[in-house]
């Protein structure tokens, strides 16, 4: 990979100062960034490591809202949300493999916004709030499209706040080589609404399936969506699956998630 300067700040303020350099890029768990750099698809002047900053790590709950700091890794999220938010714990436990889960972080995943990442589906379904060093952004406004977010230059994800649902389930139809979802659906049920977040399917990145949310809010059973259909127009088509196949998966997985709730 190309040479760069490694910067290891001890505090968030030091990290933000280091990120003001042109060509500086934040490094969280690096499980996507490092392979990308090895292929010389990315050439930062400096990498600012966020993992050694204690104020960016941890999980807490207050008023039925789960707050996860940005540099918390997937393995810690699995362990620390098992009782409070089992749907999210199960999602985190299926990301990558055990070694990847010990390094990769929720903040890195959210900020990268891979169109097949898992957390964005949960963030959308739960109407989570993305916390940055500068502001709070609703999930609906944060994810702008494939690998594109509302983050400004030098702005980093410091945490994510999830209102804890009554029940939730994530159905990941795994692409077996990459272990990313070919399509994934997160269903979250609250007292007054149901959220359906879809990842891996659309050319526009993660989205909420509004029609299904309405139908499931009225009747939370798999039957409620049986007459709906997901249009294939904006769906991803590649060698793993056609647009029609992914559109079909969205409906099937939504039904399975509801049945599993």
């Amino acid at each position, binding site marked *: 990979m190309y040479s760069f300067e490694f910067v*290891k700040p001890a505090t968030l303020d030091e990290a933000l100062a280091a990120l003001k350099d042109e060509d500086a890029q934040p490094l969280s768990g690096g499980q996507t960034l490092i392979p990308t750099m090895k292929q010389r698809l990315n050439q930062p002047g400096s990498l600012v490591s966020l993992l050694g900053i204690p104020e960016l790590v941890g999980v807490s709950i207050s008023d039925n809202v789960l707050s996860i700091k940005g540099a918390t890794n997937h393995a810690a999220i699995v362990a620390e949300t098992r009782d409070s938010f089992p749907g999210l714990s199960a999602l985190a436990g299926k990301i990558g493999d055990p070694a*990847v889960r010990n390094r990769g972080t929720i903040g890195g995943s959210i900020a990268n916004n891979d169109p097949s990442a898992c957390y964005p589906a949960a963030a959308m379904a739960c109407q989570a709030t993305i916390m940055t060093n500068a502001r709070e952004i609703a999930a609906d406004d944060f994810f702008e499209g494939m690998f594109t977010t509302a983050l400004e230059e030098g702005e980093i994800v410091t945490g994510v706040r999830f209102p804890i649902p009554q029940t939730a389930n994530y159905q990941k139809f795994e692409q077996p080589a990459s272990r990313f979802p070919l399509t994934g659906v997160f269903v979250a049920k609250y007292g007054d609404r149901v959220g359906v977040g879809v990842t891996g399917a659309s050319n526009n990145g993660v989205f909420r399936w509004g029609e299904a949310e309405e139908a499931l809010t009225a009747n939370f059973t798999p039957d409620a969506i049986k007459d709906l259909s997901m249009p294939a127009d904006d769906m991803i088509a590649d060698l793993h699956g056609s647009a029609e196949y992914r559109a079909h998966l969205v409906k099937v997985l939504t039904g399975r998630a509801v049945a599993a709730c």
Partner: protein
Amino acid sequence: MKISLTVNGKSQSGEAEGRTLLSTFLRENLRLTGTHIGCDTSQCGACTVHVNGMQVKSCTMFAAEADGAEVTTIEGMAEPDGSLNTIQQAFQDHHGLQCGFCTPGMVMAAASLLKANPKPTEAEVRAYLQGNICRCTGYHNIVKAIMAASGQELPALAAE
């Protein structure tokens, strides 16, 4: 920059560039070549080591990130008298390797699995090895070896 870390219980230090991977540092600076580079694309797990007790792919972490850490490699797995530990012995007894290239990563992964889950089911072993690829496709005996290392009676495994 200077990197100082504890590897297999021994204090070590050396010079590394920002881009130096932990796997490179272990193999080239410390000459601990038991950690293998199988794919260099973060997929195969042959480079698996433990950093502060956590299993990681050492080709997908910079040496600088391990500064101050405790690292265990395959060279640190044998018993103090140099004999094979339980997992290593089980790999030998059950022919859990063919070409042997993936074996260091398999043993390191098995060790962290058995630490977290001392009596895994066969399905749990297979799921846990998702990040470790055996190009000889010798998974059957690898799974058998890990089941044996956990002290469980060997079940009639799926392929038999």
